[in-house]
């Protein structure tokens, strides 16, 4: 399509980040540099993950259409490193819980946006061929922002030493859900053969549910003491 189409996709992908950054008050905390640091951590963690995957996971050479369940599961397990990375970012920032969560999540999600979506958008949405997938990709980046905020919140709750015993289980469940969400989605799509718009919708609903749950937990936890 045209540069205008790229502009559309880019606005759709990027503006929610900008709005979130502005409205959450991070700008007043002078948090830009910290977000950049979080982004750098993201890069470092992804590099480690890639090295790990490349070293220990041979490429799957099964027949076409065959789903390598175990292999994919193991690969999803490597995403646990993301949790470590988020924890690392938050532990290096002093401040209130919300602030730490927002900085880590914003930096993390923005780094992901830049690293894994900007280039395909630039190359694809600007091409002659029109495809809805670039609009979908932009929506997907909005969803992943929410996802990372929820994930950072859950990680923050999990690593608190004053976490009440009764919270331990739900937080762990949420944490597992966060990590394996992509894997479960993939499995779901594979089993039910969904169209790309339905997948996006399901993803939005699932992410919304997880985020709402973590918000409940967070609110309860913060205001309980």
């Amino acid at each position, binding site marked *: 399509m045209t540069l*205008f189409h790229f*502009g559309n996709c880019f606005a759709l992908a990027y503006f929610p980040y900008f709005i979130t950054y502005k409205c959450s008050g991070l*700008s007043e905390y*002078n948090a*830009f540099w910290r977000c950049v640091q979080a982004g750098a951590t993201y890069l470092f963690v992804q590099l480690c993950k890639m090295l790990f995957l490349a070293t220990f996971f041979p490429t799957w050479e099964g027949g076409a259409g065959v789903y390598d369940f175990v292999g994919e599961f193991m690969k999803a397990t490597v995403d646990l490193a993301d949790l470590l990375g988020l924890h690392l970012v938050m532990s290096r920032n002093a401040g209130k819980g919300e602030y730490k969560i927002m900085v880590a999540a914003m930096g993390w999600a923005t780094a992901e946006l830049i690293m894994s979506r900007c280039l395909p958008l630039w190359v694809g949405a*600007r*091409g*002659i061929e029109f495809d809805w997938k670039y609009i979908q990709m932009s929506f997907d980046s*909005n969803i992943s922002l929410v996802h990372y905020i929820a994930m950072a919140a859950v990680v923050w709750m999990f690593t608190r030493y004053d976490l009440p015993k009764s919270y331990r289980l739900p937080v762990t469940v949420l944490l597992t859900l966060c990590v394996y969400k992509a894997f479960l989605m993939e499995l779901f799509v594979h089993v039910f053969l969904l169209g790309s718009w339905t997948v996006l919708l399901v993803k939005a609903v699932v992410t919304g549910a997880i985020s709402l749950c973590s918000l409940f937990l967070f609110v309860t936890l913060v205001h309980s003491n």
Partner: protein
Amino acid sequence: MFEEASEVFDNMFKSSFPLTFIVFIPAVLILVSPLPAEAAHEFTVYRMQQYDLQGQPYGTRNAILNTEARTVEAEVLSRRCVIMRLADFSYEKYQKALRQSAGAVVIILPKNMSALPQDIVQQFMELEPEMLATETIIPVYFAMEDDELLSIYTQTLTSSTSQGSLSAAEVLLHTATANGFQMVTSGAQSKAVSDWAITSLEGRLAGVGGEDLPTIVVVAHYDSFGVAPWLSYGADSNGSGVSVLLELARLFSKLYTYKRTHAGYNLLFFLSGGGKFNYQGTKRWLEDNLDHTDSSLLQDNVAFVLCLDTLGNGDSLHLHVSKPPKEGTSQYQLLKELEMVVSSQYPEVKFSMVHKKINLADDMLAWEHERFGIRRLPAFTLSHLPSHRLAQRSSIMDVRPHVDVKKLGRNTKIVAEALARVIYNLTEKGAPGDLQIFTEQMQVQEEQLSAVVEWLTAQPRAAQLVDKDSSVVSTLEYHLTRYLKDVKKHYVKADKRDPEFVFYDQLKQTMNAYRVKPAIFDLLLAVCIAAYLGVMYLAIQNFGVLYSVVRKITQPKTKTH
């Protein structure tokens, strides 16, 4: 935020040069990166003929195509690529597209051309010369139908027909849901091919007994012609003529190896190139033989020149002459022998002589024998077609099923018998009319004929595609050397300053069909996105509301703790 960012960047660039390097180089690379060619569908297209003959341009003059697709039903065709299916193709539609200054025309041919209804084939055959008769500014392409292309055609058809009769809301909805297609060819502009050599092949069988033996020349042109060079397989015209010539060479080489059957005639076989371009190969061959050499078989004592053209079908044979042969000449003898063989052995075949004077004012010569006639050599053409104007001689529809091997074999037999009767002077020796020479071990081999036709129609043999190193030429040469002596190649190159023929390249290209949306769609999308972002902004602004609601819900619990 931006001030902070600029501060950060300032510090970054001041402090460390390598970092600048790392940030800037990819940025520049991304900005200058070419657009990728990731197409919805990619297919091969064959361009219409483009050539100049005697300074006169013919065919399409353009190769570059980058426009949106429409079918001919759409109201506005200007600067659009008009796609048509062969089944719906007509000259009026083609003319309509040209009149409305369409950007290009793409004609979709069905995969199996021999299964087409006969009337469509006939109609298209007659249109081909009309399309080529004048020059066309826009590119005209032919594509082979497949499922993807058909779906592109149907989608274009629905969007083209529904235009104009809709309300504004429907049009808006339509732009969001329907697909347009941008057709793009990847090749460059067509340009003249310089120094193209047309190859012709010659071989002979020498007779015995005396110095100044009469010579019989058998000629067939091997190239094919159609509206698109890459689609012209030329089965009947002139794959059949070539196969007959090769079979005659085989039979007479056998006869000429035995002393008792070695006759007093020289046989000269000539496979000419560029036959569809006013017999350029023959013209040069005659010039070389008559003007530039001292001794040549063609200079001394030529009995007659027999040209073979379109012999693979039909139940009639026509001997086309430009001057009725006089009694007593060997031409007349061959005519009589042909009549005799046909009447006594194949009564179902209608044989006749067709007389047409050479019209020098015409741009194109009618038959190959006229080239010889101009140089005062006694010549005629044998064909099953009654007229040189028939479209079968220059059509892409002339494919393998157009040749009936049985009839081809029968025609070969008739020619061979008649020639043998002339060479051995059998009628004067009192041989009966139904005497068959080519029987048993000497019989015409239909497998051989069908193999040659099969091989010739396996690849397009347009004059623009057969260069001097091509497999067509080398295989023909190999066949000739098996039976004949002194096989020679002759090359024709057009004169540099005043070329008689000019060919152009870019005849086969890859075309991409990109799915596109109209510009209004972008605007519509922008409005939708702006609305979505506005909602997002409000939602994030009022996140506190959600937060307090959640808090209210959880509050009673915390109190009971």
